[in-house]
């Protein structure tokens, strides 16, 4: 049961070692930097130190209670992340698969629209546009 905000990379396999012991179902999500057809070389991720950690821990605890998770983990990076690098991950452990899937999707929907991170595109020529929030991401929250 932990939330981390960090600039260093992480290894999904290493993070999962020992995760969810005793559970029947483990779901993970990881988000990676896409090159958007060659338009991007990296993303620069800004965040709100202090609030970020609190928000991730709060959403994790909420998901744990709502879906009866036996374990959960959230890691989100900030700073400059090259194409192909992991941006973040969530992992959820529960008795059955439905709860583990639902909790991972719930966490992702909250992180996308309610955790204080902002992505900026970095192209071959340097810093580009701030990524705009997608209305689908906002809409996704309404299902919970």
């Amino acid at each position, binding site marked *: 049961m932990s939330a981390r905000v960090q600039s260093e990379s992480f290894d999904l396999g290493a993070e999962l070692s020992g995760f969810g012991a005793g559970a029947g179902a483990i779901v993970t999500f990881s988000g990676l930097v896409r090159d958007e057809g060659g338009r991007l070389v990296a993303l620069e991720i800004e965040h709100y130190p202090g609030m970020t950690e609190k928000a991730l821990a709060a959403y994790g605890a909420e998901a744990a209670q709502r879906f009866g998770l036996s374990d959960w983990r959230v890691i989100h990076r900030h700073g400059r992340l090259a194409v192909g690098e992991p941006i*973040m991950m969530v992992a959820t452990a529960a008795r059955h698969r439905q709860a583990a899937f639902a909790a991972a999707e719930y966490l992702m929907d909250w992180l996308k629209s309610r955790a204080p991170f902002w992505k900026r595109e970095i192209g071959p020529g340097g810093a580009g546009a701030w990524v705009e929030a997608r209305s689908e991401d906002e809409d996704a929250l309404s299902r919970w």
Partner: protein
Amino acid sequence: MAVDVLYFAWLRERIGQPRERIETRAATVRDLVAELVALDEWHAAALSDLAAVRVALDQELADLDAPLAGVREVAFFPPMTGG
């Protein structure tokens, strides 16, 4: 009272600084925005479209009509794009 006002992402860039200390008598976030907009053209540009601005009070998401009493840190930023 004095509050720390923080800006992130393109709001930070438009305003030209990540934070500032503001003496204010604003009762709500909306009142504070009106005072900030009156400061100069950069604040006005950053805070012109409030539909594109999100607010946190003492690191908790809040809305524009939330009261400022007792608040020490106000943050303005665009819709979040984590994940």
